[in-house]
Structure formats: structure tokens, C-alpha cells
């Protein structure tokens, strides 16, 4: 029987990978994927808490579902924007998107 700690460790690892990927990568698509990783890490911890902490209303699971819906919407918009930018700028490298700098 896996323990709560096990789930949380996996969740933390996933979040760490996502955060690292977000900061280390230059490719906009990969950064979006990293953000999704972080979302899922959070989702994992929420459902883990829901399963292991006694409660009657499955709040954590509901939160998880909500986050999935939000993440789906976010990634739809984000991906559309990223595709549009890649089309106009002919690159996916985010360092090139510095027009709004100071």
C-alpha cells in the first residue's frame, strides 16, 4: 500500500522537473509542457490528500477536476498564442520575444 508521503514525493519531483524545465528551456512549446507538468504535480498532491486525509466531500478531487479544466483552457489559449507568435516570428525561442523589454 503506497503511503501519502510516496505520492507527495512523486508530486514534488514532478513539480521540480516542471519548474526546472520552465526556467531552463528556451522553447515556448516545451515551457508550456513544463507548466502542465507543474499543474499535474499539484493535481497529484491534491488527489493524494483527498484519498489519505479523512473527509466526506472529496474536496481535493473536485479541486483536481477544476484544475484540469482550467489547465485545459489555459493551454488552449497559451498554445494558440504560442503558435501565432511562432508563425509571425519564425522561431519558438523565447529570448527572441523581448520587444516589450523596458
Amino acid at each position, binding site marked *: 500500500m503506497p503511503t501519502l508521503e510516496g505520492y507527495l514525493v512523486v508530486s514534488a519531483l514532478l513539480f521540480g522537473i516542471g519548474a526546472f524545465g520552465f526556467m531552463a528551456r528556451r522553447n515556448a512549446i516545451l515551457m508550456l509542457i513544463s507548466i502542465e507538468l507543474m499543474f499535474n504535480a499539484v493535481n497529484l498532491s491534491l488527489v493524494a490528500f483527498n484519498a489519505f486525509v479523512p473527509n466526506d466531500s472529496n474536496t481535493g478531487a473536485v479541486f483536481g477536476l477544476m484544475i484540469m479544466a482550467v489547465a485545459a483552457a489555459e493551454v488552449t489559449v497559451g498554445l494558440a498564442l504560442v503558435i501565432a507568435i511562432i508563425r509571425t516570428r519564425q522561431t519558438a525561442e523565447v529570448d527572441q520575444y523581448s520587444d516589450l523589454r*523596458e
Partner: protein
Amino acid sequence: MTIELLIALIPALPLVGFLFAVFVGPRLDHVPTHATHGGPEGPTDTGHGEPAAHSASHGAGPIVDDADYRSVPTEEEQRATSPHHGHADDLANAEGAQGVIPHEYDDGLGQSGHVTPGAPRPRYRSWIVPTVLVGLSWLASMVVFASVIFGGNEHEVVIYEWIASGDFHIEIGFIVDALTAMLLLVVSTVGLLVHVYSIGYMDGDRGFWRFFAYLNLFMFSMLLLILGDNFLMLYVGWEAVGLCSYALIGFWYKKPSAAGAAKKAFIVNRVGDFGFGLGIMMIWVNLGTLSFRETFETIGTLDEGTITVIALLLFAGAVGKSAQFPLHVWLPDAMEGPTPVSALIHAATMVNAGVYLVARANPIFAEAPTAMWVVASIGVFTAVFAAAIALTQNDIKKVLAYSTVSQLAYMFFALGIGAWTAAIFHLVSHGFFKGLLFMGSGSVIPGAGGEQDMRYMGNLRGPMRWTYITMVIGSLALAGIPIFAGFFSKDEILAEAFNRGYLLFYVVGVIVAFMTAFYTFRMIFMTFWGPWRGPRQAYRHIHESAPTMVAPLLILAVPTILAGLFLGIPPEGGAIHGWLGEVFHDSEEAGILPGSILSHGHEGFQLFGIGGLLLLIGAAAGIGGLLLAYRWYVQRPESAARFVERVPFGMGPGMYRASVNRYYVDDLYELVWARGGVLVSNALWWFDSRVIDGAVNGAGWVARRVGGGLRKLQTGRVENYGLGIAAGLAIVLFVYATVVR
């Protein structure tokens, strides 16, 4: 017609005249301009040097554009240029009387009688309605005067409630008691005569209708001032006469000296008026009323310190309006205005407002001995100070101006020692004879070709006989020669000073009387006697003034001779005492020093007693001054200069210079207030531009620099932002882990 309606008409008629003159007047006058008659320089210009240049400058341009508002050159304008450029040359160049007008002002229309030959005569009708209305106002005044003085009535008229706000009630109301009636007599009479006089004096001036409009507005304001039954109405009239004074001093506003003098008068008056305004506010705060009657009934309930402050603040206004030291500097400069204005406003009426104020507020002053001392001291000092300046002035109007300051100071001296009736007596007689003298000088100056400097006059008694006779009568009154008005009124002040125990003031007063007689007849002798000292050619152009100018002189000569006899006999108990007795009844005891004659009870005037002796001393001072002037300026014209050299310790020339330079008071004010004001303003400007603006600009600078620093954070690199988010998250977690838990 009820008396109340008459009283209301007295100020209302000049107001109507003012409105008429403003709205209809300009259409009634026809003054030919250059554009219409052309070639102004014409045949008279041959001796002037650059006729072409002048014609060119006249032919077109700004002068024609505002011709309606352009004042014609006068003796004042002539003087403005002459002393420094050598007026003798102007006159020497002159082919005729027209030549005395400087080119730059000469548009073919001169002062009375100087209109260029061949040019169309100006036609004036705008004087008719204003003058007739002032005449009607005078009639009403005389009826009211008779009702009050001879009928023994006292009238109060309330027109309507002006301000009603909470406890603050101000009515437009008039009060006519004996004091107001005396002022009415002077203001209406001199006012009417000045209107008549101005018809002749202002002939040839483009601002004719404007002049009459101002005069009527002045009459309205002055009558409001003396008729008002509360301090606020007095204050309104007070400010309005100040405004008219400003407008009339600066009547020839294109002349810089006149515009400057007008501003000076207005600003110096503001200083005093500020005090006056504060005084009125203090009365309101302490008593809750501004009506004369209620104020004077309840003033005794205040403590003496408060009353003294109120009295001194009111007196500050009087000092400004009546040109007393240290606010006397504006009155001599005010002589830049047309001479009828000097006669009306700056000799006979407006400058008396300060005396009227103190006399009207006598219940307040009677409760404040300290304030009375201040009034008397300033009066005595100003009297001797101004007389000492008048001794050496060469400008005929300046002599009269300083004389006015000195005589007004006499009145304050009388008020300060509690001789209220004597002060009003002197006000009345001075109003008549000083008005006469100023109008006389206004007749002399254009008659003598625009010259104002007495050193270039002389021997005018032949060609200007009527002016000469009337001016001598006025001078005899001013000098205090027996039987003339000034003798009785001045002597009464001196006798009161003696009887009330002010011996030092009495002695100074006698000395001032002597000086007054001396400088007055110095003026007469320099102007009318001796040889003609102006340019030779000019003498044959000297002429008597127009009948409308001479007639007022003759009329004013009558009260100048008779007022003293009618009002002042017997001395210290004449008719005027009976009239004014009730007004000053409760204040008569104020100012009597312990141990003086009056403190033992007065036994009345005795011709062969102290009273007679004082009368003799006063007469001797006047006659002595007259004789000294005769000796120095007629018999031995060089002896004045020799006297200056003989003053011990060689102080003579220095004293003379100091007197000629008005004891440097004007220079001191110029240094302290004008230059000092510029210095302070510069310092404040520096503070404003550096410190205030610096702080504002500094705030912007700081924001910009901080923003400039912070914008470097906006790298535009997403990973940097991500790092920032992660770092922020780490910090929040760290804080949560270490501090919160």
C-alpha cells in the same frame, strides 16, 4: 417733498450724473482730432527744428487711433518734460503760447485759450447734466443743512436693509447731525464750484466727459461717506473716494509721473485702509454692531485696552486718507492730477475724511486717552514737519500740498487734545480757503504759460488781477491774519491747546502758524510780486483765466473772509460751538490735562484776559511770518540765501537741502519699500524657483531615476521572470517554514 427724500437725493443725484456722463457724455462732446483738421504744426512750428519728423509722427499711428481717450497736453505735462530739459528753452522757442506745449503732446489743442488758431474749436456739452445735478444736490444739501443747523433737527433715514446675515445687520441708512451738516456744507459747496471751475479748466481736453464722470462719482462717494450711518457705509464711501482719487490723479494717464503718482496714492492709502478695516472688524467682533449710534452707546462696556486698539486702528485709516506722517508721501505726488482735482479731493474734501472719521468716532477716542495722545502727537509732528518742507518748495502746487498736510495735521492735533469743535471749525474754514488757493494756482499755471515753478514766475498781479486778489484773500486766511477764516479756527485750536494744558504743543503750534504765514506769502510774493523771471517773450501772453474759473474763486472768497466772523466770534464760543455742542457733548472732557486751566472750570473767553493774549500771540505769529516773507522776497530778495549761510555751525545749507528734498522721507521709502520690496521679492522668487520648484522637480527626478533603475528588471526574458517567480515562491515558503510555523 420730505426731508428724508431730500437727504436720499443728495448722494443720488451725483450718481445719476456719473451714469449720464459715462453713457451719454462721449456723444455730446465734439473734439476735433488731427485726422480731421490736419497740418497741426502749420505756421507756428517754424522755430521748432524738426517739424517734418513731428508731423510724421503725428500724421498716423496710435495717437489718432485712441484719440477719444487721449488727454490733451496741459501745464502738468509741460512740467513733466520741462525741468530737466530746460523749460526756458521751450518758452524761448515759442512763437506763441502754443509753443509751451511739448511737441510730442501737441495736437493743436492746448489748455484753455491755447487752441491753435485756425483749428476748429472743440465743443463740449457733457458738463451740463452732471453740473446741474451737482447743483441740485447742493441745493438739497443746503436745505438739509439749514434744517439741521438752524432748525435743530437730527435726521435719520433708512433706505433699506443691505445685509442681513444672522446677527449681522447693515442698513443703507443716512444720518445727518450737525457734524455731517458741516461736512455737507463744505463738500457740496466746493464740489459744485469745482464743477463750474472745471468747465473752463478742462477746456480743450479730450477726456472732458470722463473728467466730469469721475467728479460726479467722487461727489457720490464722498457724500455717501459723510452721510452713512454705520461704519461699513463709511468704509464703502472711504474706498470709493480712494478709487476716484486714483482715477483722477492718473487722469492724464499717458504721463508716466501721473500714472505713478496715482498708484502711489492708492497703495499708500491701502496701508492705512487695512488698519481701518481691521478696526471695523474689531468693533463688530466686540460689540456685534456697526451702526454709529449703537457702537457709541456700548463702547464704554469694553476694557480700555480694546478701545485703544480700535481707536488706533481707525486712526491708521485716517492717517492714510488724510496724509499724516508717516503716510503723507502720496499727497504731494497727487498734485500730478488736474488742479480742480487737487482743489476738490486733495484739499477740501477727501483728505478731510480722516478728520471726519476721528471726529465721528469721538466717543471711542474719548475712552482711549493713549490713542488721543497718539493722534495729538502725530498731528503736532506732521504739522511742523510738513510746514518745514513747504518753506522751501518751488512748485506752487507742492507748497499748497504740504500746506494741506500741515493744516490737516493741525486738525488732528486739535482732535487729539479733545478740541473736537475747533478741529471741525478748522476743517470747514480750511476747506474753503484751501480750495480757493488751489483753484487760484490752477488759474495761475495755465495763465502763466504752463509754468509751475515759482522761480520762473513773478509780477502776475497786473495781468491776473482777480486771481491775485482772491489768492491773497485765501493766503491771508491760511496765514491766520485777523478777521479771515483761518485766523479764528487756528487760534481756537491753539487756545484749546493752551487751556487744556498742552503747553509744548501750543508753542509748536504757534511756530507752525508763523511758518505757515511765511511760506504762504513766500508763494504770493514769488508768484505775483517782483519782476517776471520767466522768458521775456512769454510775459505778454499771460492772461486772466476764463470767467467760469474766476467766478468760483470770487464765490469762495466770500466764506474765506466771512466764515470766521460768523462761526468763530466770540472765540472759543462762537456759533459753531452751539451747533456742534451736542455731537461732542460727552467727549468734551476728554484730553484735559490735570492742572490745566480747563481742569479748574472754564470761565469763558475774556478779551482782556488769557484769551485775548492768546489771540494776540496767534495774530502776531501770522503777521510776523507775512512780514518776514515780505522782507525776504520783496524788499531784499537775497536775504533768504544770506540767512541760510548765517545759521550757526554751518548747518544752513544742509537744512535747506533736507527741506527741499522733503527730509528724504520719499527717498527712504523708495529705498526701504520699493528697493527693499524688490530685494525681498527677488529673494522670494529665488526661494520659489529653487526650493519650491526644486522640490517639485526633485520629486519627478527621483521617480524617474528609480523607475530607470527598476526598468532594468524588465529584461523581456521569460526565464528571468520565471526565476523571479520561483525565487518569490521559495522566499514565501522559507518564511512560512521558519517564521510562521
